[in-house]
């Protein structure tokens, strides 16, 4: 059915006026496209330049950090001295370690708890499903500060205050609603028919999950885990309130901010940004799963 019919060539003489209009139209289209590019590039610069600043501060010598006026060219001289100075400061290496521990516990715990709930939301129609979904959405809208104070008081009383594990418990509570919603949308992106097909062809429900659903949702779960990691890594308020000796990196940087030098601060800012910069490239496919579905 691919017999091409030679369409009769337009033999009408195009008048110069029409040609001019066409040209104008085309120019206008190019102009608007160019304008859009320009706006896009301007916004990109607005986003990228501050990152470039802090990165070049972190990757140079402390002397250069203090220098004024600063060179417009970044990374000159390129050096790891500022970073080394920052890492050598008191409480930073333990803070990094605590941050990693808290974030890892948080992502493991929240994924383990959220995955079944996300699966239930995406696969079952049950009484109370909408209520559950709505309350999850509502929970996300509650401020962290209201949780941190009473939890701190409770943790003090029960003797698990100033402890990376109790901080991880708190971060899990913060991450859980988002993780449930994200994982539910990840599960929803796998058609249930695939599971049914697996069951027809000889799988038990458990096997169907393992052979078909799990391999397909793994990237989504990984993205959600990275997201949780960054959330915990970034969290300052609860971390400062719930710990004294065992501070995470942001808590340590915040508390010592007033007594610290600029090289220390800039390197600290750079270190806190690092996971986020890596993370955005890994989760880009899931960006809209994360936040886009909030309005649904």
């Amino acid at each position, binding site marked *: 059915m691919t017999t091409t019919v030679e369409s009769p060539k337009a033999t009408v003489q195009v008048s110069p006026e029409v040609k001019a209009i066409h040209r104008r139209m085309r120019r206008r289209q190019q102009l608007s496209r160019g304008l859009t590019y320009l706006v896009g590039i301007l916004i990109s610069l607005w986003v990228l330049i501050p990152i470039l600043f802090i990165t070049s501060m972190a990757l140079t010598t402390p002397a250069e950090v203090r220098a004024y*006026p600063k060179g417009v060219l970044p990374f000159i001289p390129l050096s790891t001295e500022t970073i080394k100075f920052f890492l050598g400061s008191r409480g930073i290496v333990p803070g990094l370690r605590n941050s990693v521990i808290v974030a890892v516990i948080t992502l493991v715990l929240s994924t383990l708890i959220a995955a079944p709930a996300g699966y239930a939301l995406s696969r079952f129609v049950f009484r109370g499903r909408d209520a559950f979904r709505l309350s999850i959405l509502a929970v996300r809208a509650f401020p962290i*500060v209201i949780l941190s104070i009473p939890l701190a008081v409770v943790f003090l009383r029960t003797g698990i205050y100033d402890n990376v594990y109790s901080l991880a418990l708190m971060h899990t509570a913060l991450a859980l609603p988002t993780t449930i919603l994200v994982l539910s949308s990840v599960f929803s992106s796998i058609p249930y028919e695939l599971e049914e097909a697996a069951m027809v062809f000889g799988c038990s429900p458990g096997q169907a999950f393992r052979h078909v659903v799990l391999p397909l949702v793994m990237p989504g779960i990984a993205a959600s885990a990275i997201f949780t990691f960054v959330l915990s890594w970034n969290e*300052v308020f609860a971390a400062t309130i719930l710990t004294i000796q065992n501070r995470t990196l942001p808590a340590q940087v915040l508390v010592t901010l007033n007594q610290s030098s600029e090289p220390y601060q800039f390197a600290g800012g750079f270190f806190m940004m690092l996971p*986020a910069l890596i993370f955005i490239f890994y989760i880009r496919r899931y960006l809209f799963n994360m*936040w886009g579905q909030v309005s649904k």
Partner: protein
Amino acid sequence: MTTASAPKRQKRINWAPYLLILPSLIYLALFFAWPMVQGLILAVREEGALLTVRSEAETDSSVAGQLPRGTQVNILNRQGNPIPPEAVNQGNLLTEIWYKVRGQDAEGQTIEGWTPERRIRVRESDESGAPVSGSVRSILSSSADPLTSIYLEADEGSEVIGKMEARTAVEIIDQATLEVWFQVKGEVANETVEGWVPSRYIRTLGDGAQGRIEEGDTSQFTTRYIQRMVNDRFFWPALRTTLLLIILIIPAQFVLAIIMALVIQADLKGSGIFLYIFAIALGLSDLAVGIVWYSIFTQFGYLNSILQGLGLIDAPLTYLSANTRYWIIIAVWLAEVWRATALVMVIVVAGMQAISREVLEAAEVFGATLWQRVRYIIIPLLRPSLQVALILRTILAFQVFAVVIVLSGGDVMTVLANETYRQYYDLQNFNVAAAYASFILLLSMITSLFYLRAVRTQEEVAA
């Protein structure tokens, strides 16, 4: 195969989904709902505000009245009262020990009964330190009965079964620890309350005839912490700055986010790259962002470097100081717009993707300009997304504090979340901190409700 009665099955409830959501429900109840309620309670309830005064020295006797914490009382009398051994080490309670002794009374009879520890001098103890024998102390006061009373029970109210002379040798058979109860008399609101209270709540003053209620046993609703919050000298500045920042930040974010979304949705080559760049800030913490903008606005920072490089200034200007508050506001505004627009952008782009391409093309065919399309097609259709974005953004904006701390040094300019942190961390006022937190919660809810009403979706308007 028989075709007898086809088996009927009752429709069963499928428990699987409930089992699957159970862990998260439990977790959220424990670490979300419960602390939330606790937080509100902390803000309005004073623990141990009132002390229950009883008519007898018994925990289950009738209530004679209540005295507030801090009341000065006269201590009229004292009495020991049995308490469970696990409560012995609790608080600052006074205890007294009674011994059960056996020995001859003044009449030569061998009796067995209880007497306070202070009446007996212990002579011998076993290897565990428990006294096994001793003698009755002499009573020095001339006015009192020179004999020591022996009671039937370890209670001064019980029957006296005999009296012993001083220096009588006794066997110590048993001992009991008693909590001292005070008979107190105090005034509250011009009313005198008299009765018995456990000593653990009272600090005795001077010679022991006076005391002060240190702690109550009953909590009480109070507006004290809220008053303290409102009267705090940082409260109004914090509230003003918070609201000012929200009013400045939110519109700028939404305009920028919609422009970003339009650029991404324009279907240009490479718009994927734009999306990733615009979304970078999604993963940045407010602390890190505060430091980034500090590096620009600090006295020897990038802004001054560039201005001086361009020859616009001769010497570095100071931006982040008490005299240049507006610069701090501008810096915080820029930092927050820079950081948090990404979130709005992602929500808006997701909402735009749901708008049918044909609707926009139809608008274009009927002659709508870009601005008209945004104003009359895109924004009305984006309402549900915008509503969610507005709520999320505003609630997050109420919680911003690290940016402000970094850029203002913590005290030049303050916001509500910062005050919460300060009350908790620097001043250790947990209740006032909880009051601040509850206030933020209240503001968040009010604005959410406001948005839900103000930014109604078309269906709601039509209804």
